């Protein structure tokens, strides 16, 4: 490797002190450093580093900041009391902007963020070694002082820009964290706070976001004539993007499904059109199930767009039926026409709506929870009230996947008709 030989050449005669409290990181990085420098000493905390330094000076000190006994900043501060122009490279994680500003105040020659990106690390070492060379050669080139001064000024400017960039990166990381928090609040706010209270309908819901924020959405709201709209939807992907998309989708659904100018199929057409135009700019689609429950008529009308079947318990037949989607997901074609399906409701019927985060949840053996297991659980607990039925599903899921992380949002809605 050309770069390596170049570095080794520059590193001739340079002694390095490397201080890092994490044993694994220290072993790994010191082995790397030994490929460049012949003389590498290591210490596992600031105090040890300082006492090693006091025994013999080092040309370069590379140090972690957060360490027990004496931290990196304290150690370097002590060293600089003795050798003002000690060369230092700090290694630190993205955790605190004050370390960066303190380091700059102390006087630092390089700052590399953990986890270490080795090319960046080598880059910083490379630049510093050139500087060290220049410093020693400076003594011999008194005649070329002017030249050297302008070079050094340029280097300082470059280093300044570098440090500014690092500062920017740190700010971005913090900003992203704040954004996530806001997105989370947005999502918490758009899940329905109030489920329409109805003496004939008992509801139990469960929602769990996979990552910070999810792409699942469910909603309950009244429209004209006392009809209750029930929606469950899932946008492809998850994370900050889909949660913001869902926020818009919620607004669209609430506005359109409550307008009395359009029939139910027309309403879904309009919703689909809006999702299509949104989807042009970014690649996504939304699976959804729309249900309108009329207490007056004792019936539901539903339209499914690419979403998994709704499991409907028919109390008269004592069996579970599947209500299916008749159309493809929203956001793909804007010319789709939708068809309603109507279904009569009897007392003690119930529906289980869910997103594929439930049926596709996997255990350690990569087996999926699956619709079959869900059906079995529902069947076993079909006589229970809605809250106990929900508990039996969530506990059955938990027993199946145990401690394994879920990588998709999980939404379960149970609506029981009394």
């Amino acid at each position: 490797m050309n770069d390596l030989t170049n570095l080794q050449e520059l590193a001739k005669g340079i002694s390095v002190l490397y201080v890092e409290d994490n044993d694994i990181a220290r072993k790994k990085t010191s082995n790397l450093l030994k490929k460049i420098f012949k003389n590498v000493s290591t210490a596992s905390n600031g105090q040890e580093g300082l006492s090693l330094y006091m025994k013999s000076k080092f040309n370069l000190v590379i140090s972690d900041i957060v360490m027990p006994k004496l931290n990196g900043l304290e150690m370097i501060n002590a060293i600089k009391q003795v050798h003002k122009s000690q060369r230092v490279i700090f290694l630190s994680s993205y955790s605190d902007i004050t370390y960066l500003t303190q380091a700059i105040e102390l006087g630092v020659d390089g700052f590399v963020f953990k986890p270490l990106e080795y090319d960046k690390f080598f880059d910083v070492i490379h630049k510093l070694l050139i500087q060290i060379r220049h410093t020693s050669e400076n003594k011999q080139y008194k005649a070329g002082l002017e030249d050297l001064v302008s070079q050094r000024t340029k280097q300082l400017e470059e280093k300044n820009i570098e440090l500014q960039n690092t500062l920017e990166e740190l700010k971005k990381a913090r900003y992203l964290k704040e954004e996530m928090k806001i997105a989370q609040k947005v999502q918490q706010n758009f899940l329905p706070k109030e489920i329409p209270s109805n003496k004939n309908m008992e509801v139990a819901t469960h929602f769990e976001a996979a990552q910070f924020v999810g792409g699942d959405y469910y909603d309950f709201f009244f429209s004209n004539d006392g009809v209750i709209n029930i929606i469950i939807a899932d946008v492809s992907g998850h994370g900050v993007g889909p949660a913001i998309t869902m926020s818009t989708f919620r607004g669209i659904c609430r506005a359109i499904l409550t307008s009395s100018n359009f029939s139910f199929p027309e309403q879904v057409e309009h919703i689909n059109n809006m999702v299509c135009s949104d989807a042009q700019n970014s690649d996504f689609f939304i699976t959804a199930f729309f249900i309108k429950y009329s207490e007056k008529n004792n019936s539901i009308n539903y339209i499914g767009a690419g979403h998994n079947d709704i499991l409907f318990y028919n109390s008269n037949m004592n069996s579970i039926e599947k209500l299916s989607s008749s159309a493809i997901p929203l956001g793909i074609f804007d010319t789709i026409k939708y068809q309603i399906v109507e279904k009569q409701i009897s007392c003690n019927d119930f529906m289980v709506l869910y997103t594929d985060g439930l049926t596709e949840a996997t255990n350690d053996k990569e087996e999926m929870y699956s619709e079959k297991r869900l059906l079995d659980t529902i069947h076993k607990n079909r006589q229970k009230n809605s809250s106990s039925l929900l508990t039996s599903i969530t506990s059955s899921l938990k027993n199946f996947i145990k401690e394994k992380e879920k990588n998709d949002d999980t939404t379960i809605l149970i609506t029981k008709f009394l």
Partner: protein
Amino acid sequence: MKTATSKIIIKNSLNNIKDVMNWIKIDLKPLFQVENRYQNLKLCLQEAVTNSIIHGNQSDEKRKVKISYFISDTLKIEIEDEGNGVALEKQNCDIKDIKKEDIFKESGRGLMLMKHFCDEVIFDKNKTTLIVRYK
């Protein structure tokens, strides 16, 4: 950080308290490293639900109680009944102020327990909110 939320509606009967405890166990028990703190939460929740069933809903079987929890960096539980609201004076019940005669009065005790075993309790008409900093 995980976020999760769940909501149930129970019929107004003390026999349903068991269902409520089974329901919270799956998501809420794992949040607590120390068993004690989960026990404290169960007591608070049971007090709030019992209050809603007996006082808020006047033990009327036809009424319902809505219970929901929200997990983010804290745990928030809301218990809502169909009553007219809890009298504001109850909010002023403070453990320090109890005189010996008062100890014999039943009504304050449940609220005392809630305030002691929970980080924060908020009463808002017919809705009680419990906040637990589980971390």
